[in-house]
């Protein structure tokens, strides 16, 4: 097997080349028409609207957001663990389960996670109407599959010798099964599970933009009426929620909690989640069985798609994914390298916080004030949002590692940027790229959101087909999305295995 020949550091910087076509198209489409609106948008960030009415609405909306985000996070974590165990090879080495079950579960998980929660939300909303249990289900479907993948990867690392020795001593019991899985599950829950809560909050906010409820709905309504001061009140409210939830979860130390208490707690959570899922299934199917059946009858394909147009949209979506990934991978190290001083890093941190906070559909709506809709604009938006996420990880890893080589190089008189590059960045490049490969999977799925708002690719067609209630077209688009995401996941998996 050929290994990648280029070194990880150069591969990290190489995607900056996407800036050439991006800058070209953005310059062609640039206009100053909305510059006054943009000025108003920026100034409003400093003077958000504050009065009794808006504070009450903010609290109500945050409450809904917390409810949707927390419920979906809880259910997706618990079912993620269960499906993670059921889809890991190691479970089948000592449990007498049929192997086709593993294959079936794996396939099911691949398909469900290949479609973004926004698309699930839009579809479920069209079928079942407006209520926020739809938001919870929409987030849970792909999140369970993503969590299952991460948990299953960690469970695969269990030492086979441990299993053999348990087998030799007394054979398998339920308690020994728990003991075996306990450590990787809790470790992943600590490292990854809490991060997923932040993701669930963001997803709830974005789903709100499409009408599910919560803070996103207020954000979208204020933007649509160009009420920027109100918009910033909600955005700062969302920032407050994200910061507070992170601070609370940092305080919880899972390793120091008594195991018995945790075990009881997990059982309780599991029972609640199981019942809640039963409730959702009952709620959805009991209430809407008639339209659901009538939609089944509509699955006779008589689409109006012109195959040329469809291919064009398909290619636009792939191009959008590639350009956005290029920006997300290369911008953080590039800008940290250029603005490599305390003030520079502080500015990068602040800007990346804002790009993480403001949902991508709102970013693109702001950028549309002085640029026409194009692939480049959507790619820049998606790229910047994801670069804000990758830069956070890169900064944390860069400045918490051992700095001896960097200090040595500086004391030898090597230029600051050179010593940063060879003393600090080189050691992180490999793991950073591996994370970016994972991030690219997410970018591919997120192209749907930008497409819906920015008139680009399959996302735009999906919105048109959904608003015309053309279910046959919706199915073709979903199939196309799913194929792109699955192929992307396979390629990124290959890159990751070459890097680690």
């Amino acid at each position: 097997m050929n290994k990648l020949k280029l070194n990880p550091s150069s591969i990290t910087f190489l995607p900056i080349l996407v800036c050439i076509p991006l800058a070209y198209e953005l310059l062609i489409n640039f206009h100053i028409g909305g510059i006054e609106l943009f000025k108003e948008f920026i100034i409003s960030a400093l003077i958000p609207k504050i009065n009794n009415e808006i504070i009450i609405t903010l609290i109500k909306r945050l409450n809904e957001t917390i409810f949707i985000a927390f419920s979906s996070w809880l259910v997706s974590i618990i079912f993620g663990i269960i499906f993670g165990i059921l889809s890991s090879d190691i479970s089948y080495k000592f449990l007498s389960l049929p192997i086709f079950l593993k294959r079936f579960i794996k396939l099911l998980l691949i398909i469900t996670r290949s479609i973004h929660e926004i698309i699930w939300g839009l579809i479920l909303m069209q079928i079942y109407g407006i209520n926020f249990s739809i938001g919870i289900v929409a987030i849970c479907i792909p999140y369970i599959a993503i969590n299952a993948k991460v948990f299953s990867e960690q469970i695969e690392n269990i030492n086979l010798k441990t299993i053999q020795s348990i087998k030799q001593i007394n054979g398998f019991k339920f308690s020994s099964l728990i003991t075996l899985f306990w450590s990787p599950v809790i470790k992943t829950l600590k490292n990854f599970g809490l991060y997923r809560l932040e993701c669930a909050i963001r997803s709830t906010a974005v789903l709100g933009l499409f009408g599910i409820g919560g803070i996103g709905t207020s954000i979208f309504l204020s933007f649509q009426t160009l009420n920027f001061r109100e918009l910033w009140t909600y955005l700062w409210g969302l920032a407050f929620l994200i910061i507070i939830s992170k601070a609370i979860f940092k305080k919880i130390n899972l390793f120091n909690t008594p195991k018995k208490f945790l075990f009881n707690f997990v059982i309780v959570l599991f029972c609640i989640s199981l019942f809640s899922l039963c409730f959702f299934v009952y709620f959805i199917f009991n209430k809407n069985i008639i339209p659901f059946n009538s939609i089944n009858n509509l699955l006779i394909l008589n689409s109006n798609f012109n195959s040329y147009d469809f291919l064009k949209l398909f290619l636009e979506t792939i191009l959008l994914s590639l350009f956005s990934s290029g920006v997300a991978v290369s911008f953080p190290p590039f800008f940290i390298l250029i603005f490599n001083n305390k003030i520079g890093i502080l500015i990068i941190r602040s800007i990346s916080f804002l790009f993480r906070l403001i949902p991508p559909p709102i970013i693109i709506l702001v950028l549309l004030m002085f640029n026409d809709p194009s692939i480049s604009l959507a790619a820049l938006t998606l790229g910047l949002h994801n670069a804000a996420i990758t830069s956070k990880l890169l900064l944390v890893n860069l400045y918490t590692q051992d700095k001896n080589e960097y200090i040595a190089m500086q004391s030898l008189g090597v230029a600051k940027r050179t010593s940063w590059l060879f003393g600090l960045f080189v050691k992180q490049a490999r793991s950073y790229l591996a994370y970016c490969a994972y991030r690219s999977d997410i970018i591919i799925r997120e192209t749907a959101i930008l497409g819906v708002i920015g008139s680009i690719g399959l996302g735009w067609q999906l919105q048109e087909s959904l608003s015309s209630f053309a279910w046959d077209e919706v199915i073709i688009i979903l199939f196309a999305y799913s194929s792109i995401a699955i192929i992307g996941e396979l390629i990124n998996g290959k890159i990751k295995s070459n890097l680690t």
Partner: protein
Amino acid sequence: MLNIKKLFIASSLFFSVLFSPLYASTKVLRIGAIPDQNQDVLDKRFNLLSKELSNILDIEVRYIPVINYVAAVTGFRTNDLDLVWFGGLTGVQARLQTPNSIVIAQRDIDKEFKSVFIVNKKLKLDPISNKKELNKLKNLRFTFGSENSTSGRLMPEYFLNDAGIKIKDFKGGRAGFSGSHDATIALVNSGAYDAGALNKQVWENNLKNNPKRTKNVRFFWMTPAYVDYHWVAQGNLDKRFRKGFTEELKATIINLDIKKPEHTKILDMFNAKEFIETKSEYYKNIELVGRKLKKIR
């Protein structure tokens, strides 16, 4: 091993929240509307109407806001909304998807509704009288209102096509969707878009009440008349409330009288002098245009 007390408390708390939708009363008349204007305008208009309907019909009436046109159609189909103020296109979509639904009424102005095209003053484009001159909009940044708006998208696109202009003739080969009529004015006024199309009523209201918002915008062209907004109700209201309820509801809406002070404000907010009877057949042309532009399949 299991702490039953904690399990019981946690489960009870969770279920009391999660099952709340099941306890929703069936005796509440839920009103909805397509969000064609600023939410605060809609909130005031429909809350006021709900209060009046509640007083006259002696039932609880609740206004449920929705975020977009599609959600209003879906909410009606899934029985989340009982009575909805639809546009021409969304009304047809909703009725096609909801068997037994009933057309209740329309405003006096909806029999002959019109859309207007507006342009940013910087373009120095004079108003036109012949639709053929719409080709002056080619290569400009153009925005419609919502994707499913009759007066903000469907009919303007129909008249544009009729004049030989396709969407791909606009700058970038695309048209934008502002989401609402008010947003269309704001975006053209700011210069973010060069031109746009919207509901005549909203344009006239903004000209009268919001000079700041329209100071950089100029009227360009007005479309011929077509039928638009109407009230559509579920077909099961008699069964859910009482015998003859749908007729009572229809009469209440049609009998709103501009001479009565309590009704004047409501009718003013709808920009109407009265509500009148209408029939689903009046909307056949809208259905034909909708099918032609593939908004109805």
